């Protein structure tokens, strides 16, 4: 089952073009959306939220077309984007009172629980909150109606590691229900290294990688070695090779073929998501 289905989507903004022939996000899992700044993550999320109009193609959420049925869809989505759009003069309590009536499923007990967990003062005005507290407040507003789809656009950027861990905990708590899906964009990849089930990577408006976490963990290697060990077969398999006076390094998606060609003089290291992002980006520039 897919919670989001994107087909033949095109969107041009200035000299940037988003082009996604097909992308499906699975229901019941956490999918991380990574890529450099300007690679098209926010544009994609805004299109899913129907905050931008499509130039072509179709996006479905819960099987419904976002262009025509966004009202029903938004009832079940928790979205945190930039900027939050709350009135700066209103207190947190007043903001809640404005937002809550829009949702039939609003859960005040849950709201209070999160406020306590983040130690927020609901009598404070939005403008008096720090940048981090603002993000926390937005997240609480997005989650307190128990949405089935949680969409986060860089929601953990600018937050300290303790708060990021807390947010991860809260998301995992929501994931205890098989119906809940999370699709979140970030460039702080260590958050993803922990909990995401799938990873989608964007580069220059296109999806360049879509893998599940276990495959990412087990199949991607950083290969390093002396330059004389870099033969044509190896060079063809490597992504984003970098050579210098002391040797070479590159990323490999390990196939059986590949493993056989590896000699003793090569060092193979497990690649993390950040490595994969950097090498893929490097590879696409040549």
């Amino acid at each position, binding site marked *: 089952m897919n919670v989001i289905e994107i087909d033949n989507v095109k969107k041009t903004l200035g000299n940037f073009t988003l082009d996604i022939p097909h992308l499906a996000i699975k229901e*019941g*899992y*956490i999918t991380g959306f990574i890529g450099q700044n300007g690679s098209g993550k926010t544009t994609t999320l805004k299109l899913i939220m129907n905050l931008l109009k499509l130039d072509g193609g179709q996006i479905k959420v819960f099987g419904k077309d976002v262009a025509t049925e966004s009202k029903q869809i938004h009832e079940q989505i928790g979205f945190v984007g930039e900027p939050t759009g709350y009135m700066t003069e209103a207190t947190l309590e007043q903001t809640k009172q404005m937002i809550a009536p829009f949702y039939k499923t609003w859960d005040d007990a849950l709201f209070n629980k999160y406020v306590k967990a983040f130690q927020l003062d609901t009598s404070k005005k939005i403008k008096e909150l720090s940048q981090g507290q603002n993000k926390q407040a937005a997240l609480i507003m997005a989650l307190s109606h128990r949405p089935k789809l949680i969409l986060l656009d860089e929601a953990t950027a600018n937050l300290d590691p303790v708060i990021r861990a807390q947010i*991860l*905990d809260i998301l*995992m*708590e929501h*994931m*205890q229900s*098989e119906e809940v899906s999370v699709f979140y964009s970030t460039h702080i990849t260590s958050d993803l*290294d*922990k*909990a*995401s*089930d*799938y990873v989608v990577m964007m580069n220059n408006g296109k999806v360049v990688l879509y893998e*599940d*976490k*276990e495959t990412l*963990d*087990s199949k991607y290697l950083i290969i390093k070695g002396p330059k004389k060990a870099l033969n044509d077969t190896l060079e063809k398999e490597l992504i984003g090779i970098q050579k210098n006076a002391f040797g070479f390094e590159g990323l490999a998606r390990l196939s059986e073929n590949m493993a056989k060609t590896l000699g003793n003089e090569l060092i193979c290291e*497990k690649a993390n998501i950040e490595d994969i992002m950097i090498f893929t980006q490097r590879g696409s520039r040549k």
Partner: protein
Amino acid sequence: MDIIISNQSATPLYLQISEQMKHLIVTGELTAGDMLPSIRGLAKDLKVSIITTKKAYEELEEGGFIETLPGKGSYVSTVNLDILKEAQISKIEESLHDIIESAKKIGLSKAELKERIELLYEEE
């Protein structure tokens, strides 16, 4: 039930989980009929992805260690501990073969090897 996983280990996370659960079953800490934590609950507690715990449980199912009833959860199955132990022993024997081979290569005598094993065994 203790499950301790390491993000730095070369062993994949799902294998770390399934191996430790196997150990708990073989040593009798988990017995037939015991209910296992849910895939999602375990992922939350271990701070790993759901895909990882799911794969660990699939591994255990394939090995006949656990059974999953849709909508109910996973249970430790009635495994024949003798057969399991037999399998473990043959694994140990395999490793011993390698050790003996290495010992012979450097001319270590049987008595010397035995002595070393005894010493290490006591330490454990």
